[in-house]
Structure formats: C-alpha cells, structure tokens
C-alpha cells in the first residue's frame, strides 16, 4: 500500500487504456505517454499494461506503507526518496515508511510512478484507467488526493533482487526523437478525411504555422493557437468516432488535437491525425510549448513504430537480465 501525502490536482491512476468500449460511448483514457508507462513497468518486470500514477501537477508526495520497488519515468525531473536523490528513468527499492517526493519537471509534462506488481485497483470494462467524466476506473473514478491509500499488487520479483538501475529515456535512445534545437516539437501526421476541403492556402498554413499549445489544454485535448484555418463553405459533419491524435478544426479555425480523455465522437472537419509513434512525444508537450506538423506517408507512419517497439523490447530484456545477475 502507498499513502498519498500531497497531490495538487488531476493526478490519476492510468494503464494503457480502455480499449473496446468506444461503442458504449466510453473513451479510452490511458497514459498520455504510453511509452513512459510501459518503460516504467518493464524496469520492474511488470506487464506493460500494469497501472501506475500519472503525475501532471506538483509537488507530489507519497509514503510507502510496506517495502516496495518503484520506478519513475516520463518527464525529466528531480525526486527524492527519504531525502536521497532518485534519478528519472531509474528503478529503486523503498522501505516501509519512506517518503517519495516528486517535483515539477525541468522538461516535459508528465511523470509516471510505477510500482512492482502495479497499482491494484479493480479493472472496470477491462482497464484500471481513471475515467474522470464517467467517474469510474482508477481510485473511485476520481483524481488522487492527500490521505488516499492506494493498493499495490505483489511484485513479480523477489524484493531482495537487484534494483537501483536506470535506462536512457526514449528521446535520447531513439534517433530523431529529441526535440529540435529551435524548441519546436515536430509531430508527424497523416492527412485525415476533410483535408481536401481546405483551400491550398489553408493547407499550406497548416503545415507552415508554428502552433502554440494553449493553456486550455488537458488530457481531453490540446487547443492550438497561432493561426486560423477556415473553410470556404462551412461543412456539417455527422457525428462520428474519433481517436487519440486526430486534429480537428472547429468553426473558430483553431485546431484541437484530441487526446486520451477525448469524447468518443466528434463532428468537426478532420485535417490530420498524429501518427502512433509520436503520441507519446505529444503527451509530454506542456501547455505553452510549440509544435509544428510534418506530413508522412502511411508506410512511413507504420514503420515509425519499429524504433519505439525496439526500444521497449531492449529495455525489458536489459532489465530482466540485470535483475537476474
């Protein structure tokens, strides 16, 4: 068990998402940076999909009520365990009573705390992810708060095994994943259904604009400012399914990228969709930061997942090997 000592707002329990329930109107939820969550789990020998805590407001503090192993992944930051430094992308052993204090990231938006055995809240519709709007999943369907006691499962490994090692984060380990020097995050997209309804000038503006992620952005979606994309004639789309990463253009002309907690349906024209291999990078983009869109082909979008999958596979193999030494 772990006890939450401080959690400002919007910190939730998440796994890799609730898949297969969109047809009941249930959005997927799930970690905004699924690579960081899966990596944290791999460090500990958990299933990739074990639930952890997604921390996006700080400072966050928790106390271990029992001996446990944990990992911190995601955004680059400083943390302490019983006042000693814990590095990001590192797994550690904690003794009962010790306090883990996590401070705001230097870079990136979200930190994932994973625990040996994963957070052991009940699965709802196949997932432990918190569905905030629906009020189910996670811990009673709500954000964490001070005083909460969160159950942790049994670690798949002996607690006297080797812990205390780390790995390179994916933006270092995967070629081309690092942020560009100009501090603009380049996000690869495919065109989506209504791209051709926009004039050539509007299409060009979409590609050339450096978009700012507005302060009105959250797990539901990123609102972008910096330009306006208008249609010559407005279109009324019938309500249809949407997925994480779809870039919609509402009548205001400022695009919205739907994220993990987006509604299952939308009706705005779709300009583009972020490729799967870049969703984790977008999940670490903080409000106020800048992004630009690059077009890729379908084949390149599919191929772009290989380095991500290789990274996770190598990480898991290395962690398993190290623990067995």
């Amino acid at each position, binding site marked *: 068990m772990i006890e939450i000592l401080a959690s400002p707002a919007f910190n939730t329990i998440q796994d890799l998402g609730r*898949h297969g329930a*969109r047809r009941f109107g249930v959005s997927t939820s799930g970690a905004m940076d699924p690579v960081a969550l899966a990596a944290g789990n791999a460090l500990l020998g958990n299933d990739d999909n074990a639930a952890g805590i997604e921390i996006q407001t700080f400072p966050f503090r928790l106390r271990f009520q029992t001996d446990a192993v944990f990992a911190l992944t995601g955004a680059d930051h400083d943390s302490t365990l019983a006042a000693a430094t814990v590095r990001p992308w590192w797994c550690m052993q904690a003794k009962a009573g010790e306090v883990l204090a996590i401070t705001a990231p230097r870079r990136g938006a979200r930190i994932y705390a994973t625990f040996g055995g994963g957070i052991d809240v009940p699965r709802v519709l196949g997932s432990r992810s918190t569905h905030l709007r629906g009020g189910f*999943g996670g811990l009673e369907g709500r954000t964490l708060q001070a005083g909460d006691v969160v159950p942790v499962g049994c670690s798949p490994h002996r607690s006297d095994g080797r812990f205390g090692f780390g790995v390179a984060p994916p933006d270092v380990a995967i070629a081309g994943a690092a942020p560009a020097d100009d501090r603009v995050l380049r996000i690869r997209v495919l065109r*989506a259904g209504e791209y051709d309804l926009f004039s050539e000038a509007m299409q060009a503006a979409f590609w050339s604009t450096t978009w700012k992620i507005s302060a009105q952005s959250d797990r539901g979606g990123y609102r972008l400012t910096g330009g306006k994309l208008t249609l010559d004639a407005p279109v009324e789309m019938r*309500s249809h399914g949407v997925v994480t990463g779809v870039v919609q253009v509402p009548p205001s002309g400022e695009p919205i990228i739907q994220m993990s907690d987006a*509604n299952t349906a939308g009706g705005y024209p779709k300009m583009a*969709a972020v490729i799967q291999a870049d969703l984790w990078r977008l999940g670490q983009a903080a409000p106020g930061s800048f992004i630009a869109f690059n077009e890729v082909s379908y084949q390149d979008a599919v191929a772009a997942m290989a380095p991500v999958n290789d990274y996770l596979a190598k990480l898991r193999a290395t962690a398993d090997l190290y623990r067995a030494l």
Partner: protein
Amino acid sequence: MSINQPNAPFVGTIEKSPKISLIGTLAMLVEAPGDFDLVQQGRIWAFADAVSTWPDVQEAVIGVTNVMLVFEQPPADIGMLSASIVELWHRVPSRKADGKLIEIPVVYGGELGFDLPAVADRAGLSARDVIRIHSEGEYTVCAVASSPGFGYLHGLDPRIYMPRKSVPSLNMRAGSVTIGGMQTGVAVLTSPNGWNAIGWASVAMFDPTSEQPSLMLPGDRVRFRIDRVEL
C-alpha cells in the same frame, strides 16, 4: 472514396459506395453515401456487425450514418482492405431497428425541465402539446457515443425541433430529457450541455460494472412515458 493521399490506390467507382478515409494508422472511417435515413443507418448497423468479426478489427464504432473501425495493428494493405469494405457494403442487407423496446418514465417540465417553455414558445404550441408530441413518438437509437451510454435518438416530431443553445447550461443533471436540433436524448452525466431540457427521468443509462454497460444500443427503440407533468 479517398484514402487521404493524392496518390491513393484506386478502388473503383461502384455507384453510391461509402467514403473511406484513414484517421491515422489505427482507425478508418466508413461513411454511408447520401442523406441520413433509417435505411442507411440500418446498413451501418449490419455492416458494423459483420466487419467487427474481421481479424485485427478491435472495434466497429457506430456513428450517425458512419462507422469507425479501430485496428489492433495497422492494416498491411489499405487498398485491399478498402476494396473488401466496399464489397461488404454492397452485399450486407440493411438491419431493421429490431432491438429491445426501452420505456422511460419522464417528469416533464418543472425545475429540471427548465427549457420546456422555450421549446413551446418556439414551436408555437402549449407546453402540454409539446409533452404530448414528445411522449407519443417512438424513437430509434442510431448510435451510442459522446458520453458513456448516451444514445443518439432519431424520430423526433419536426414540430418540436429546437436548436442547440449557443451558451450551454453549465450543470445539467444526469437524467435530463433533452432536445437538440432534430434529436432527443437522455443526459447520462451531470455536465455542461447545449441541448434543451424538457424533463427528467430516473433511469440508469450506464453501469460500468455490467457486462452490457449501456442501457441503449444501436437499433433499440425508445418510448417516453408521462410519469408526471409539472407546469
């Protein structure tokens, strides 16, 4: 059809084929051609039933005259997949609204049906007439989307159409019976809502712990019964 790329594979020009477009590598939207009607919607239901059994299709998500396919893995050959979709579309017979009949008792008007006077005003009818017309209709669940268990209901009498509000009501109660444009529905979450509340129903629309979490499913029929009138 379009597959979002200028040099997309050409699949054919069978008359009135669906529009097919990708949403990233893991989702594909299939939109029925033509106007919205229950025959086209019935084809969407039948198509969704059939296509959701295909390998790698994680889910077929029904919308209003469209269906989004969500894949486990990116399809290897988009052109071949699109051709199979077009072929299935032309082969599958339309499904009738043959689901269960759901009866929903409504407290019309009153504190939670606060938009009833505005709906009556716009329709040029009395509040009682609006209630009568709304409760005499039989509605079809076209799709379940947007919020957990929220059904898009078709079949509202045109006399009581009412545009959505430009400024949503901030905290509309779950269970509110609403009219939005040419549709009616029952709000499942207490949240901001741009539709017009004409009443309230004490019905569990969604239970996440149930194997079948949503009370309404596409193809179900809905009747609203007058439980009480508060004018």
